[in-house]
């Protein structure tokens, strides 16, 4: 099983519902700051490219890399790739060395100021939802249908269907991380 996320840039209307839903579901709607990225505590980062000719946004989150540097460098095994293909953190094993944060080429981990834990997608609520056969909250709440989630090993999964239809890029592929976060840039 290789669970993966897809975000369709061409459908996204930039409403931020996924960001708010992640904050509500995984971080109890806290209004505390995200000390690493700024803004709210959520696992989705909004990056705005204010290029004069062609402004665009990227909504990025943990890429659940198949060859994950954060997992490789973690000294205790706290960061690991689960059988479902998702990269997870076991808080019991985490010493808070933050090596995973400096190793992630995507900068997709942020430090929880209360527990000192490096947070990232997926949060605990989303993990429980996926276990129960539901979609992560960001996928459920997206009003534009810009998000999909599913198993790359299942030819009928929503992710695979969309991968076949769209023009897709993966971020920083040259880093050899084999990311499982797909950005649809057109049809």
């Amino acid at each position, binding site marked *: 099983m290789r669970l993966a996320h897809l975000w369709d*840039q061409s459908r996204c209307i930039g409403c931020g519902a996924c960001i708010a839903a992640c904050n509500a579901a995984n971080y109890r709607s806290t209004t505390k700051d995200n000390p*690493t990225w700024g803004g709210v505590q959520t696992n989705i980062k909004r*990056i705005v*490219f204010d290029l004069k000719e062609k402004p*665009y946004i*990227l909504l*990025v989150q943990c890429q659940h890399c198949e060859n994950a*540097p954060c997992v*490789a*460098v*973690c*000294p*205790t*095994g*706290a960061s690991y790739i689960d059988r479902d293909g998702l990269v997870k953190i076991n*808080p*019991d*094993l*985490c*010493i*808070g*060395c*933050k*090596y995973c*944060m*400096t*190793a*992630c*080429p*995507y*900068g997709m981990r942020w*430090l929880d100021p209360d*527990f*000192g*834990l*490096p947070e990232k997608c997926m949060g605990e609520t989303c993990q429980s939802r996926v276990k129960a056969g539901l979609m992560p909250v960001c996928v459920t709440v997206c009003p534009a249908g810009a998000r999909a989630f599913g198993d790359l090993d299942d030819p009928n999964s929503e992710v695979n269907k969309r991968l076949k239809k769209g023009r897709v*890029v993966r*971020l*920083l592929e040259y*880093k050899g991380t084999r990311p499982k976060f797909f*950005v649809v*840039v057109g049809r």
Partner: protein
Amino acid sequence: MMFQEVWNPVIIGLFLWFAGIAGMGSVAYALMKLGKVEEKTKELSCVVFASIVLALVFVVADLSRPLNMPLAIIRSVLSGTFFYKLSTSWMTIGISLLSILLLLALLVLLRETVAKGLQKIVDAKWYLVLTGFVGFMVVIYSGFLIADAPGVPFWNNSLIPVLWILSASICAIAVLKILVHKPEVSNFLTKSGLAVDIAEAVALASLLNVSLYSGVEAARRSAEALVAGELAAAFWLLVVLVGVAVPMVLGFMLLRKEDRRLALLAAACALVGALALRILVLQAGIFLELSL
């Protein structure tokens, strides 16, 4: 300019600096004992042991979950994961190496101070070779620790471990220079110090040059910040002038005639420069930028 704020540059800089002094200090201790040089080995063993302890204090000080550390490591060891991680994580290697060096250096310290009876073990060739080897590995680890972080391109560079070895050697030579008074030994230290100073200057220039022209935006911005940006004043003053140029000029003067006060000044400058180098390299780290 958004410098990395994940690792505190001063705390981790001090950790890397003490780890370097402890590591290369152990190598120096082993070489001195194997070469039958007995002068100031007691003082050197104190410096090495204190440096490891301080290195550990500083590395723990930057953890965000220090209270969870003992149990987490025990759990990881008991499950066997820790041993597997030795093949992928420099942090795991470092935890192991620092623990071993702490033990080795403690026995050396005891042998040199209150428990001369340990001589049989500590003075044995195998023990000295092991201490020197583990010390050297600690220095290598302190370089690879940051060079192995692909999120920060300026660090993710093979020149960092080389620079760290050279800079740690300079620190060990400086410590010995402060401790040792004998003119022959001092002269030998001056010569080796000069050679390593020159090599460090080349490694530093290479790191900056590669980072400026490698085509990776984040690495270029880091190098620019050091050479001509926000960190330039500290870099040129503390790293280049105090850490490299002054010790080099004083080294050439000492080559002609050893002078205790000048030697002490050169050693102090070299130590300050090595610390500043680590802090500033850490501070200058900038994360990779994402784009389509």
